[in-house]
């Protein structure tokens, strides 16, 4: 009986702990903290980041923020998976972060997580990632068309390119919608 009570007590304590820990990592500040390194890579001009919740969670980077004023919006940053475009590589899910200027131009792409055994030489290569810098949301962005597939691993590269393009278009659409609605 005593052992049973102890088990119940352990479960009762551990569940809220796990939930709190997990929950906190999803809340704004901690989420920025978690991805800070990537955020700085894709939005280097920004000195202040804000995590946005909603249907398409993302980050916003600001510059020259002082006190209460968030400053000037430098761009948006988002994980492909948050915008609903999962990249399944050979081994497991690949997560990339894309930085987008408010004008619809990609600043940079970084690979956040990947476990690619064989495709990894291509997905995490600067040669692949750098192709997206300064590309606009409405360019074709197709492998073999205006994006070079690194020889060999076209499967992962095509999937990643598609997810980067689609998440960018989705994010930009939501951003434009927000701006139109905010207009008087």
């Amino acid at each position, binding site marked *: 009986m005593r052992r049973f009570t102890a088990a119940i007590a352990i479960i009762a304590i551990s569940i809220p702990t796990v939930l709190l820990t997990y929950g906190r990592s999803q809340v704004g500040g901690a989420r920025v903290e978690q991805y800070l390194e990537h955020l700085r890579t894709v939005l280097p001009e920004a000195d202040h980041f804000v995590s946005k919740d909603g249907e398409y969670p993302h980050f916003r980077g600001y510059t020259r923020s002082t006190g209460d004023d968030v400053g000037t919006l*430098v761009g948006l940053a988002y994980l492909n998976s948050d915008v609903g475009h999962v990249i399944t590589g*050979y*081994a497991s899910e690949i997560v990339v972060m894309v930085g987008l200027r408010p004008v619809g*131009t990609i600043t940079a792409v970084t690979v956040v997580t990947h*476990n690619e055994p064989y495709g990894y030489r291509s997905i995490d290569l600067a040669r692949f990632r750098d192709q997206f810098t300064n590309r606009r949301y409405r360019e074709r962005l197709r492998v*073999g068309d205006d994006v070079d597939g690194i020889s060999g691993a076209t*499967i*992962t590269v095509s999937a990643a390119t598609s997810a980067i393009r689609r998440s960018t278009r989705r994010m930009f*659409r939501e951003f434009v919608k927000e701006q139109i609605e905010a207009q008087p």
Partner: protein
Amino acid sequence: MTVAGTILACAMASYLGTGPVLVEPPSQAVETGQSTLSLEDLDALLEEDEAEESVASLNSSEVADIIGIVVVLGFAFFSFARKSVALKYISFALSIAYLGFYKSNLVSIVNIFAILQGNLPGFRYSIPWYLLIGFTVVSTVLWGRLYCGRICAFGALTQALDRILPSRLRIDPPAWLDRRLAYLKYGILGGVLVYFLSTGDFLIYRYVEPFWMFTLNGNAVMWTLVTILLIATVFVRNLYCRYLCSVGAALGLISNFTVFRIKRWGECQTCKICEKACEWGAIDGPKISVAECVRCDDCERIYHDEKKCVHWIVLRKKPRAQTAASS
């Protein structure tokens, strides 16, 4: 002019081709261009993307990948069906060059991890992967470890090495040791799976599989291990495949259900020719251990050789003996 207006103007400017501009003067109003940036426009783009996710929209490099894998798998199967030594070596060359160095696309322990987790890649972008995995599983159920015998680029490489290297260097482990060592790979498979399921760490594959070497991308420890392995392979043929490969172990487990097995004659009870010829230590007296057999065809070529196989020699002698007795 609101901030939103400025942003819209910037978006317009960007769309019209003025390059990545962060802040555009507010005087550049939305109406400056022929087309305006509208939500309908953006929705149309999203719809277009949606439509393109179908299989019908494969581009030329994706079609080339599919053709490539079909040719390699098709040729490997053709060489197997023809039981030809020459075709088998061409199949090795194809596997090493295409699946090994060009695509670096082999069945790996990480595929087993992914399948266990139900984490399958999206079909649209991974048709070659599905073809490779599908062929491997189906051929293993039908004939045995055909994949190990001629599709895996590492196996093809060590088998090709075995032909090139002088045979006097070779050490054949005694049968009792060979059988025990063969179980090692099941231990490795189990160990790696337990490690993965408890830690979720995929990257263990680097230290249990040498296949990554085809990508020419490894650290000092990985290169040291693979060098030791390749040197050891000079002395013990197909060392990795026979004793260490966790994918081979998994396929070995599946091959216990193999449908079309290699035929044995009554004479195989006593004859040892095939047992000696088998480079994989898969024949133990009259029995073929399906889990170790990679369908290399060596023994089958002996069965069909009427000059070598005891079965045919006995058949040829029998009628002569009968005629001798009756005269």
